[in-house]
């Protein structure tokens, strides 16, 4: 090879501009700056008990440290937007040709970025709450600074600012012109909005942990409730929105036609949501009755701890076999910090609770005497128990692979059906309580009196359940068509589906009607509580949608070829065309016509495009969803099949062999005599397929660009293509291709998915309404306890 020592082999590759290196440096230095200020702030807060002057400096240091965490985020964002592919993280997840929104989202598509997002969200809430932490500031600040410091420590090792290997040449930094780009299956608008939303919720969890610790340390179990109440409501709303968005994202893009798969990564966000909901109800009881102060202190810490635990579990590689979200292995040191941090927090918190929770609660909160029998407090007790148990059960379920592995063997996985069987036992009492408890008074009441209050709602719910089923009765997808369907029951047998669905629908209606009823009632006299009941309504609508769309789902696989329509469910599906600039266009679609028995048609247009990764050509498919208020028709397309066999088959001259019901007889090799460019080599073959026997002679031609195979039709179904011919034995590699590609489709009919969207909206609005209603007014003293009968 020619090699000129004087010539720069990298002369044609652009150099990275100086600013970009400064930005990268600034980003990684800022992490250390933040770490230094936060550690300092923690120490200053800690000593401010003895040296009151230190508190002011502690707060200044806290603010500087927290703001510094946004610097690496900003730097990384700038590097993505300006296509600085000399950085490994930007190279791996960014591309100059993608839209701006994906360049922005590139920041959080991988491990390093998601920790950065967590750290930013946490510091945002630190900045928002430190000023209002009042008499708890010393400890609140210490705990918050400690947590942020640990996150900075993780970021220091999980840095997104490392340069690519080999880009530094002779003191200069080369800049690759393009990056790998975000994984195509992530490129969807949800990647832009879902992670920031859910991490905002995760970040906020720190507030309650820090307040609970501070309340224990300061021996004041009373005021922290008032301080964190509005934040707890907002957090629940944001987390709920984030969770729902995750489900909708999966539904719209994953192609398995569902919202929730009980994947560990999903469960990690569901558990804190359930525990937050528990805490919020505990706060209500403490506020009204002055009771449960001790258990609230414990509940305050659990949402955050469960999230840190879940993060560790999913990032540690312990669940590698189980999750569809495979993360790259984390940096060893960063994982060590996370593990140490988790153990320290859990052990420390448990010890603190055992040591003090009871006595602190007793000393500072004066409870009203308990009511026996049916009372609001007892309903809340059972409700909270069910909620927190559900959280615990799901946490155990997601840890099961690890737990089972400890008992020997390779572990085991809790699958969707098992989650459903277990969760339903908690779901039924939970929904009954959500339906009845809002009508229970704080004072003890008799069963008769309660029944009197809920009779209307109960009968209305039963009636509405009936109407739901009448509405869903007929048609090929209706209740009648499910008459034979069963579900697995927890005792090992099966139950008929329709009565089970009937019960679940009744429960949803019960909660929805109660929620709406109470919201309307209270809109007149006690506006602050309306939001909570609106949330209950939203929850019931969302769950109702999930149950109906999954429970009454119908699905069928089908294979469609151009010119040969196939049937799927009750539709006749025919391939129409490919649409788009070319096959590499991200907006390319495959167009299929769906005709129902009445002859009505619509076009389904699932996405289909190809991209190159390294040497390989890869396929990206997106499902198509035809939504209507009553049902979705969900069409999942799988990569079109063009090759009859996955691998070419080798045949020797005179060989006759049947592969996958296609018989090939290699009669003799042929050639056209010339050598060099233009020469052709071929193989006379007799191929028998389902449609007949064909004598063909597939060939290869020597061209200036190399040896090119020629497509040779075999009847009207296949092409024969020669891959390679052995010069000595004349053995050939034969590939059979479809003349018209085969499109594998899975078609789902899913009733009432619209409720999932509507429920998400109502749930979020309700949560934000109550957070707003309970916001702290600008008064010096915390709001007084208000035992109001609501």
């Amino acid at each position, binding site marked *: 090879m020619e090699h000129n020592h004087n010539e720069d082999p990298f002369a044609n590759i652009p150099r990275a501009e100086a600013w970009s290196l400064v930005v990268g440096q600034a980003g990684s230095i800022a992490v250390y700056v933040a770490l230094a200020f936060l550690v300092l702030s923690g120490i200053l807060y800690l000593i401010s008990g003895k040296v009151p002057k230190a508190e002011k400096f502690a707060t200044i240091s806290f603010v500087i440290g927290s703001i510094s965490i946004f610097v690496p985020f900003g730097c990384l964002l700038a590097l993505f937007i300006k296509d600085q592919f000399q950085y490994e993280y930007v190279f*791996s*997840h960014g591309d100059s040709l993608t839209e701006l929104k994906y360049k922005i989202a590139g920041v959080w598509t*991988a*491990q390093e970025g998601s920790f950065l997002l967590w750290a930013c969200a946490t510091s945002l809430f630190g900045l928002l709450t430190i000023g209002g932490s009042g008499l708890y500031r010393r400890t609140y600040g210490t705990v918050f600074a400690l947590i942020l410091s640990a996150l900075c420590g993780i970021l220091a090792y999980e840095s997104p600012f490392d340069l690519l*290997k080999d880009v530094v040449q002779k003191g200069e930094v080369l800049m690759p012109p393009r990056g*790998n780009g975000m*994984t195509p*299956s992530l490129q969807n608008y949800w990647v832009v909005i879902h992670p920031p939303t859910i991490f905002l919720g995760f970040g906020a969890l720190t507030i309650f942990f820090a307040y609970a610790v501070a309340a224990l340390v300061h021996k004041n179990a009373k005021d922290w409730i008032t301080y964190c109440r509005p934040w707890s409501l907002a957090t629940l709303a944001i987390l709920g929105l984030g969770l729902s968005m995750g489900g909708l994202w999966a539904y719209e893009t994953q*192609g398995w036609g569902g919202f929730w798969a009980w994947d560990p990564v999903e469960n990690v966000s569901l558990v804190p949501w359930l525990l937050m909901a528990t805490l919020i109800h505990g706060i209500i009881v403490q506020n009204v009755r002055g009771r449960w102060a001790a258990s609230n202190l414990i509940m305050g810490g659990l949402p955050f701890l469960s999230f840190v635990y879940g993060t560790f579990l999913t990032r540690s590689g312990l669940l*590698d*076999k189980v999750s569809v*979200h*495979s*993360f*790259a292995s984390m940096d060893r040191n960063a994982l060590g910090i996370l593990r140490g941090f988790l153990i320290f927090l859990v052990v420390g918190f448990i010890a603190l609770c055992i040591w003090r929770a009871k006595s602190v609660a007793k000393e500072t909160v004066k409870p009203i005497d*308990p009511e*026996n029998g049916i009372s609001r407090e007892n309903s809340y*007790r*059972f409700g909270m*128990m069910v909620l927190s*148990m559900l959280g*615990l*059960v799901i946490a*155990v*379920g997601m840890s*099961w*692979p690890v737990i*089972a592995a400890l008992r020997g*063997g*390779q*572990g*085991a*996985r*809790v*699958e969707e059906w*098992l989650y459903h*069987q*277990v969760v339903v*036992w*908690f779901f039924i009492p939970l929904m009954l309580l959500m339906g009845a408890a809002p009508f229970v008074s704080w004072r003890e009441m008799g069963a008769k009196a309660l029944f009197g209050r809920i009779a209307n709602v109960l009968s209305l719910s039963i009636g509405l359940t009936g109407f739901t089923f009448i509405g869903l009765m007929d048609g090929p997808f209706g209740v009648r068509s499910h008459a034979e369907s069963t579900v697995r029951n*927890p005792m090992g047998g099966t139950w008929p589906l329709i009565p089970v669905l009937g019960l679940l629908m009744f429960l949803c209606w019960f909660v929805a009607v109660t929620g709406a009823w109470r919201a309307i009632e209270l809109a007149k006299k006690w506006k602050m509580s309306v939001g909570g009941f609106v949330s209950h309504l939203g929850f019931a609508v969302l769950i109702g949608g999930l149950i109906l769309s999954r429970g009454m789902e119908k699905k069928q696989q089908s*294979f469609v070829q151009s010119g040969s329509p196939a049937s799927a469910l009750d539709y006749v599906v025919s391939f129409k065309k490919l649409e788009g600039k070319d096959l590499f266009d991200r907006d390319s679609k495959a167009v299929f016509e769906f005709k129902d028995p009445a002859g009505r048609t619509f076009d389904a247009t699932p996405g289909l495009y190809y991209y190159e*990764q390294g040497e*390989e050509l*890869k*396929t990206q*498919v997106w499902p198509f969803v035809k939504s209507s208020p009553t049902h979705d028709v969900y069409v999942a397309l*799988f*990569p079109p*099949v063009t*090759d*009859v*066999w*996955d*691998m070419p088959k080798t045949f020797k001259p005179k060989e006759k062999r049947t592969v*996958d*019901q296609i018989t090939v007889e290699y009669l003799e090799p042929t050639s056209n005599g010339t050598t060099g460019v233009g020469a052709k080599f071929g193989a006379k073959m007799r191929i028998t397929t*389902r449609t007949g026997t064909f004598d063909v002679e597939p060939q290869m031609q020597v061209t200036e660009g190399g040896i090119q195979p020629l497509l040779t039709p075999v009847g009207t179904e296949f092409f024969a293509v020669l891959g390679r011919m052995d010069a000595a034995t004349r053995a050939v590699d034969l590939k059979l291709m479809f003349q018209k590609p085969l499109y*594998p489709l*899975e078609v789902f009919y899913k009733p009432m998915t619209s409720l999932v969207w509507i429920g998400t909206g109502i749930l979020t609005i309700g949560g934000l309404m109550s957070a707003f209603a309970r916001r702290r007014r600008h008064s010096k003293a915390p709001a007084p306890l208000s035992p109001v009968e609501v």
Partner: protein
Amino acid sequence: MSMKLGPLISGVVAATALSAVVIAFTTGASPYVTIQQAKASTGDRLHLAGDIVKSTVQNDVYTQTLTFQVIDSNGDRIKVKHKGEKPANLSEATKVVAVGKIENGEFQSSELIVKCPSKYEAEKK
């Protein structure tokens, strides 16, 4: 006495519920098995994890049956048969978890969980 009745009932209910759940998970969770264990097991939701032997992947288009060999962590091999469409990202996968049961010495898979190194992260260079 009656003052403590609420918490007491709660405690008993919680403990019972939790033990029931642990029993349910213990008996119901789908085990990850080696090929050797799979052959000795009658379960129908066995999870067999292993490396796909790329050169053995065959896709019969007439019957839509996918077959390939898997090597488990012990180095044993077994033929896996999967009916239905191929997972979308099979071509880029190296590892697979096949869910199913043993039938006639073959692993009949009803579900293939494909692990792609590039799902969330490009492979580290």
